[in-house]
């Protein structure tokens, strides 16, 4: 019984340990939305501490039916949002998920997102690591001012 328990504990810790070695998740937040709204967005800064490029390939959360990775392109004045299969983070570099650009999209919210609450999101990376990130819910403008500060 003890052996099994020890093995389980290690199995749980290891992915987090791996993630802690490669990607730092900085200032993540989810956007507060009006009650009854079905979609929202999550923004953050991803810092790659390894020399090799790594990608965010998937995300999951209990607050939404589906979580997808999306980006925006501005094509002759027209804003287009499209799903992407990965968000690359260059070796020893960073990628900024911010309004108008990349974001993690929450589709089919199962609960309201009120300012001051927290949500938990699992991030899966191309090198096999996974990070569980707890983040605050912020009002749209508060979040945007935070990005401007960088």
């Amino acid at each position: 019984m003890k052996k099994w328990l020890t093995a389980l504990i290690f199995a749980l810790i290891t992915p987090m340990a791996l993630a802690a070695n490669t990607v730092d998740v900085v200032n993540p937040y989810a956007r507060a939305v009006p009650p009854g709204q079905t979609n929202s967005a999550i923004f953050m800064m991803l810092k790659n501490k390894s020399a090799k490029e790594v990608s965010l390939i998937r995300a999951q959360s209990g607050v939404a039916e589906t979580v997808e990775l999306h980006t925006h392109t501005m094509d002759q004045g027209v804003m287009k949002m499209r799903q992407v299969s990965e968000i690359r983070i260059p070796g020893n570099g960073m990628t900024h998920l911010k309004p108008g650009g990349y974001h993690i999209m929450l589709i089919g919210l199962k609960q309201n997102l009120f300012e001051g609450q927290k949500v938990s999101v699992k991030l899966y990376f191309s090198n096999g690591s996974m990070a569980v990130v707890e983040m605050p819910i912020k009002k749209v403008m508060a979040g945007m001012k935070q990005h401007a500060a960088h």
Partner: protein
Amino acid sequence: MLDSFKKHFFKAFLMLLPVVALVAGMEIYQKSQMKNAAKMMQIGGDFTLQSADGPFTLSARPGKLNVIYFGYTQCPDVCPTSLSVMAHAFKQIPENQRTKLQGILISVDPERDTLQHLKNYTQFFHPQIIGLTDTPEKILALSRKYGAFYQKAQIDNSAMGYTIDHTSMFYLTNDKGEVLETVNHSASPDALLEALKRQLD
């Protein structure tokens, strides 16, 4: 010597007066011309669309400075950013002038945006923003009059089903629906605030 100086100074002053008056006059004229030129944007127009509280006709509200945005509520990033920018710009206008403002979100997604949801959505950002929509045909025709572009885009394998590509711009109009000025999409309320101040003066 002082007397001679006084005499010359007075003369010079008299000569300068017409010049100053001319320059001041030209400035005032130019400013008024700019305001009129802006009025000639030739886009926009009056309309009647549906809201959760009944039909809304732009020209039925005299004296209002309308701020119109074409968007939709399933949009997770661009539209909330724009409505938040609108709300924050409104809040920075002094209260006595703020009553003239009417924020309007026109939904280009009538298939998914119900009138009640539009009301909840816009009220979340600011009480002076109203959400309107109508039949797809009416919305399309109106968007063309304003020079706003949008199109449905099917995105395969996404739980969203379809997204709507659209231009992101604020249209400031008078109570006849004539567009006075447009403000491009931005994460900062500054540009919109400047435009509002300009039009409210």
